[in-house]
């Protein structure tokens, strides 16, 4: 994954355009855990949305598997999101009307990498692995924050994505569960996936291989933990 001179301007033609990102050049590799840090409003979410194909850059080039994403239309982008990218959010984004298991299966409905039964089995295995097998048929409302986030992580993993994107995954959790989620994400990165985490929290540093700092839309510092 390679982003070159990415800029993002909100409300470009409007009365007060906001320059959220300026000339960002950044690349990501598999089997690595990245952190993007920075103050509130520095453009972290904007950058993640562009990486996650939820939004397009105003300027710049974004190569995913050596293909320019500007060549894809919205439908193709949706397909890539479903297949290659897993999302984790601060507020979990689980549907309260569905059980944990159903929430996990939501992205599999439009994906035919595996059969229905295989997906079900996979989901159950992951639930077990994450210590949630007892919770499969509970509603998110009945789960604790940490459990909800683990369910969300399983949902992000269910389609075997290459990239996991997490925007403040521990923003609503206490420090004990925070460590637990960071550890999980780190383990996931060791299975060959590229994990990108946005966080205010400096505790994340010790789990990450590479750390980027954003300041008012520009990339300022870069740290390598090796």
């Amino acid at each position, binding site marked *: 994954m390679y982003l070159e001179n990415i800029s993002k301007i909100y409300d470009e033609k409007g009365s007060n355009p906001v320059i959220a990102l300026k000339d960002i050049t950044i690349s990501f590799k598999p089997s690595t855990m990245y952190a993007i840090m920075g103050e509130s409003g520095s453009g972290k979410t904007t950058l993640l949305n562009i990486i996650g194909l939820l939004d397009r850059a105003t300027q710049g080039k974004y190569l995913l598997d050596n293909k320019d994403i500007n060549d894809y239309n919205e439908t193709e982008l*949706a*397909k890539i*999101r479903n*297949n290659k990218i897993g999302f984790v959010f601060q507020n979990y984004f689980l549907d309260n*009307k569905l059980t944990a298991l159903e929430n996990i299966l939501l992205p599999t409905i*439009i994906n035919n990498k595996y059969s229905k039964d295989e997906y079900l089995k996979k989901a159950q295995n992951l639930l077990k692995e994450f210590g949630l097998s007892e919770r499969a048929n509970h509603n998110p409302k009945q789960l604790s924050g940490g459990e909800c986030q683990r369910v969300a992580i399983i949902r992000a993993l269910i389609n075997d994505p290459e990239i996991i994107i997490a925007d403040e995954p521990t923003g609503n959790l206490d420090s004990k569960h925070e460590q637990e989620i960071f550890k999980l994400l780190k383990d996931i990165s060791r299975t060959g996936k590229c994990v990108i985490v946005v966080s205010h929290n400096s505790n994340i540093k010790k789990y990450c291989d590479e750390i980027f700092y954003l300041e008012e839309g520009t990339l300022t510092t870069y740290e390598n933990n090796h």
Partner: protein
Amino acid sequence: MRIIIKGLIDKPKLKKNITLIFSLILTLTFSFYTFYYFDLKKTENNEKIENRTLYFKTNASEKSLLKGFDDKIESQEINDSEDYSFVVFKTRDDLESFSLTKKDSLKDIVVNVTTTGQLENNMSLILQIVIIVTEILLVTLSIIFNLNYILNVKEEIFLYHVLGYKRPNTIGIIYIFLLFLSCIAICTLTFINYLICLITNLPIFIITSVIKANIISIIITNILSYIISIIYISSHNLNSLK
């Protein structure tokens, strides 16, 4: 597909809303029934001869009083030898308009006029108010339910978008399905209402026209909410598309 539909329908809320709408429609039906009943009784009463008759003291001026009302009078008996005379009007309304216009001159000479049930008049007024209020409630609530639904579904649509669902086709189809479901629910309610009409022998046309108006309003709000959600889905992030 089953999961998606389950995720889009808020069952407890839907149940609550349908119960509310159903009870409002029942209230409406009941009000109509009693309203019709009182109306019937009133007409019946007004047709009675004693309710169309005005008795007054025999007096030299009565002939000139009746001038201009000739075509509204069914029969009259003006008798100088008796203590009083009487006039029978064709309808109760004629009598009332006559007494109203000639109020001052009649004040001293009217002996007797039967008053029709004041209570019934009040009742039908109250019922009319009830009907109008329920009607307004029904329409407002159905609009509120729909708006509420859109606002809730907005977040879910974003979730589906993140998870890689195409827009707007997939969600659009699901939404049409939901629209279809709600139409079925409304039609069932209407059918029950229709049965009530048949059983109670009411003038079906009044009630059905009200119900038709309701269904149309509900369908319109549904379609509106569909259009709005389509606009929402397609506008999402499109502003940044080149």
